[in-house]
């Protein structure tokens, strides 16, 4: 009998059938179809079963509430400490300085229109300051627009350079020559130039140095976008046989002739623009203002002047253009939403925990006396 009992936990058994009193002699002859008596196949695996009891759910609610509220407060405080300044320079109103430029825009004008927008910073900005241009009502997430690009051409592929993909239609060829870079995204490149001047109290103005490199993602600049012809510095020859996009004033190899690392397809402004935005109101990094080595603030408070070379028409689709100056923290730009959301969810959780506790107290006594029906 002991042998029979011990055999029930052998790893593999041919015959799961238990016959009392019989020996194993005849058992091995017939191969049974029953599954093996292993823990896995007989579904006897060690297991754990989560049950929603009061002991688990209520503490969980309270713990979540208690964790979320400090996180939310931290996020909200961080967001409030970020300094941001925004100025709209579209020129839609008559009183705006750029009104004339906006009204008199024409596509084939050779002289560019300039306008100056004065503003005042109440508080000094410390550490690195990031200058963005923002557009509103500009749907960079329209499907046909997003597809209208040729990534192999932008990666420097020679065959795609001369023969862009069909997705770029109707911005694929112009005057019989292939367009480089092709597509609607490239064609609508933002080409306003923004400059900042600080106005001292005695009336003189100094230009603020703006850094134009280091604004695009590293992977974009070094892997995704490559110039055709490799590291050959003569870009004019590399782009031989192609023409500039329809709405551009200069061809792509003249985007930054002074710096060969920022010319052609790897021009950082171009790369930043090609990374299509998800929402119709977006901002893109334009320049970086480096922090000063001593303890002086990067942008002291006072009067400033924004010089705009107004090249980009937004009036036809009721778009707005703006310039944003912002400092940065570990959570990114100024966005109080996440902080508020965490605080809200944390407090709702806590409140719900209290409510459930009350419900549990009231009805638990009722359950104790309840009997399972037979």
């Amino acid at each position, binding site marked *: 009998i002991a042998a029979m009992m011990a055999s029930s936990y052998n790893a593999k058994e041919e015959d799961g059938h238990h016959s009392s009193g019989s020996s194993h002699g005849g058992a091995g002859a017939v191969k049974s179809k029953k599954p093996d008596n292993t823990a896995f196949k007989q579904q006897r695996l060690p297991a754990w079963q*989560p049950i929603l009891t009061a002991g688990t759910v209520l503490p969980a609610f309270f713990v979540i509430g208690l964790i979320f509220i400090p*996180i939310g407060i931290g996020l909200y405080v961080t967001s409030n400490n970020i300094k941001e300044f925004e100025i709209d320079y579209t020129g839609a109103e008559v009183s705006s300085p750029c009104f004339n430029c906006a009204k008199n825009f024409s596509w084939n004008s050779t002289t560019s229109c300039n306008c100056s927008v004065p503003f005042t910073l109440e508080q000094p900005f410390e550490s690195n300051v990031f200058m963005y241009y923002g557009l509103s009502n500009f749907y960079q997430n329209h499907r046909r627009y997003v597809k209208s690009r040729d990534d192999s051409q932008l990666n420097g592929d020679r065959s795609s350079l001369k023969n862009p993909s069909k997705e770029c239609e109707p911005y694929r060829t112009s005057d019989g020559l292939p367009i480089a870079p092709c597509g609607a995204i490239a064609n609508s490149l933002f080409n306003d130039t923004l400059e900042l001047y600080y106005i001292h109290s005695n009336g003189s103005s100094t230009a603020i140095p703006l850094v134009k490199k280091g604004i695009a993602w590293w992977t974009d600049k070094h892997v995704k976008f490559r110039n055709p012809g490799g590291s050959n510095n003569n870009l004019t020859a590399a782009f031989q046989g192609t023409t500039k996009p329809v709405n551009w004033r200069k061809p792509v190899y003249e985007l930054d002739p002074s710096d060969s690392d920022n010319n052609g397809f790897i021009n950082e402004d171009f790369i930043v623009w090609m990374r299509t935005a998800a929402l119709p109101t977006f901002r893109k990094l334009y320049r970086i203002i480096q922090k000063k080595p001593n303890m002086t603030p990067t942008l002291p408070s006072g009067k400033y002047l924004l010089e705009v070379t107004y090249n980009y028409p937004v009036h036809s689709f009721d778009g707005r253009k703006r310039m944003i100056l912002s400092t940065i923290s570990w959570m990114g730009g100024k966005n109080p939403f996440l902080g508020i959301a965490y605080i809200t969810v944390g407090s709702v959780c806590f409140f719900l925990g209290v409510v459930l506790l009350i419900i549990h107290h009231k009805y638990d006594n009722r359950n104790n006396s309840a009997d399972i029906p037979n």
Partner: protein
Amino acid sequence: FVRCMLHSCYSSLILFFIPWAAMYDTVRDDGKDIADYQSFALLAQTCLLMAVNVQLCLDTHYWTAVNQFFVWGSLSAYFAITFTMYSNGMFLIFTSVFPFIGTARNSLNQPNVWLTILLTSILCVLPVVAFRFVLMQLRPTINDKVRYKMRKEAVPAPTPRRHPRKVSTRRSGYAFSHAQGYGELVTSGRFLLKRPTKSRSTLFSQVDSPLAK
């Protein structure tokens, strides 16, 4: 049906609007772009996956090693595949098919993004948990009552060594080998009570199946 509809409407709204609001006019912690099309898509996708996995964990009543493997496995497979799809290599080989290069690397290293994912998944799951708990308190089903009783009775743990001497009582090893404590129930003669469901015990240890020998 209405409850299902409400739940799915609520989840869809959460899964879109929380990432939308979190990405509105936001940038990375080094000033560069994060509110672009590809990063937003990746964020929404990851939120969805986390929410679904957490919901799945809740609904799984019986956690074995197999379950653990599949749940954690599917999460890690998702991240592995995402990073592979967005890697340099895939882009350089199949340029037009994998244009999302660099997105996973550049957006998933932002604490902002991970906090959004955490918020979204918890927000999706909390109402379900609360609703089920309330239902269990106010209108416990027979399952719940039995489980509750089992927990109460499991406190005085029955001895694991059972030697049922009754040769003639042949019980299905499958049905009763799950439960600890059923040995008592069976041999005490109350086995004639028809349990409507196969209640599983909370604690499982290597129990001798009360098989007749």
